[in-house]
């Protein structure tokens, strides 16, 4: 309701306003439109050209160069910053590449060292095993030789003992004295059979 009223009021005032304005316009026309008063033209033209020319001169000489200077400085600064960022990035990438190369090299060296160590250990082990085997073999051979000598010696002594036994047995049993030589020959004969 209030809204309607206000709209109605607005329309009414507009209508009245237009009517009065028309009247006023008619009234003003009798005095002439101020814009058409030719006597004011020289002054308006003169002051327009003067203020425009002075403004143009000042802006061209001082104002606009200052603005463009600021804008250019900012442009340069941004370009320089971008340049520097690109350079830093390149440097960082370079460093990363160098670092990776270093790591790879270190790994390779570690691998060769490990390999060498393994080989040395394996070589050592084989050498020691060989030495041990040889020693053992020697000891075995030594033992065998000793056994062989002992056996030979024992075998030789058996003949001797047998001969003495035969000599003693013969004396005891037959009361016969046989020479050691004969007894040995007899043992040898029996042993040879």
């Amino acid at each position, binding site marked *: 309701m209030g809204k309607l009223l206000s709209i109605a009021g607005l329309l009414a005032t507009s209508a009245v306003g237009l009517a009065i304005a028309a009247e006023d316009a008619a009234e003003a026309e009798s005095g002439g439109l101020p814009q058409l008063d030719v006597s004011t033209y020289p002054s*308006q033209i003169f002051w327009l050209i003067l203020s425009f020319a002075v403004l143009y001169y000042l802006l061209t000489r001082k104002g606009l160069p200052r*603005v463009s200077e600021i804008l250019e400085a900012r442009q340069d600064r941004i370009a320089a910053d971008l340049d520097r960022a690109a350079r830093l990035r390149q440097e960082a990438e370079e460093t990363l590449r160098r670092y990776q190369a270093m790591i790879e090299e270190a790994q390779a060296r570690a691998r060769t060292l490990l390999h060498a160590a393994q080989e040395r250990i394996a070589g050592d082990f084989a050498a020691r095993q060989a030495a041990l085997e040889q020693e053992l073999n020697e000891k075995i051979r030594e033992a065998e030789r000793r056994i062989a000598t002992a056996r030979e010696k024992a075998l030789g002594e058996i003949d001797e003992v047998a001969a003495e036994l035969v000599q003693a047995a013969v004396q005891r049993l037959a009361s016969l004295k046989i020479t050691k030589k004969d007894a040995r020959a007899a043992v040898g004969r029996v042993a040879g059979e």
Partner: protein
Amino acid sequence: MADPLKQFQIEPYVPILVGNADLSFTNSSLWMVVSAGAVYGLVMLGTRHHAMVPGRLQSVVELAYEFVADLVRENAGKEAMRYFPAVFTLFTFILMGNSLGVIPGIFTFTSHIIVTFTLAMGVFLGVTALGFWLHGWRFLSFFVPPGAPKLMIPVLVPIEILSYCFRPISLSIRLFVNMMAGHTMLKVFAGFIIALGIFGVAPLAVNVALTIFEIGVAFLQAYIFTVLTCIYLHDAIHMH
């Protein structure tokens, strides 16, 4: 009720007579000088810090600069940037005059046909002289529409010349009429506010809306004047 056209009256403040010519310093002169001073003052004040990161006022100045520069580049081409200072002066001067005029009690010098016509004539003569200076007599071929049948040329060329010569008239009348009509409307409605008593709220509301509208018009008309100037510049430099 006050005469709504009284606001356009030229009031001499300091009478100056040079020979026969009356060059008095008037209310119109005052606001021309103030507008020019305000534009220059704003530019200088805004850029006084040379800040890499602009403050509020410097942003406004930079914005205006870029705005007009883009206008010239887009409508008149890169070569026209030589005339950027003139276009910038034109735009800011008209914009300041229009905008200050929206403030009640301030005389709007752009509401006078002689002012807008002088500006438009300046643009017209400058652009035409530039056309002849750049292209010599070949600039006359601008008035022959490309691809027109030979038979039609005697008809078309006078039309082209006529429409070319109407440029300053349409340019000046558009600005002057817009400013004058807006201010007359404001005054007409303002006249009712007291007269209608409590119902004066209605014309007051209309005036508030009109004032906002006028701020838009103030900018738009300065913009249109500048864009057309750029287009004329383009014609003079590139011919079509």
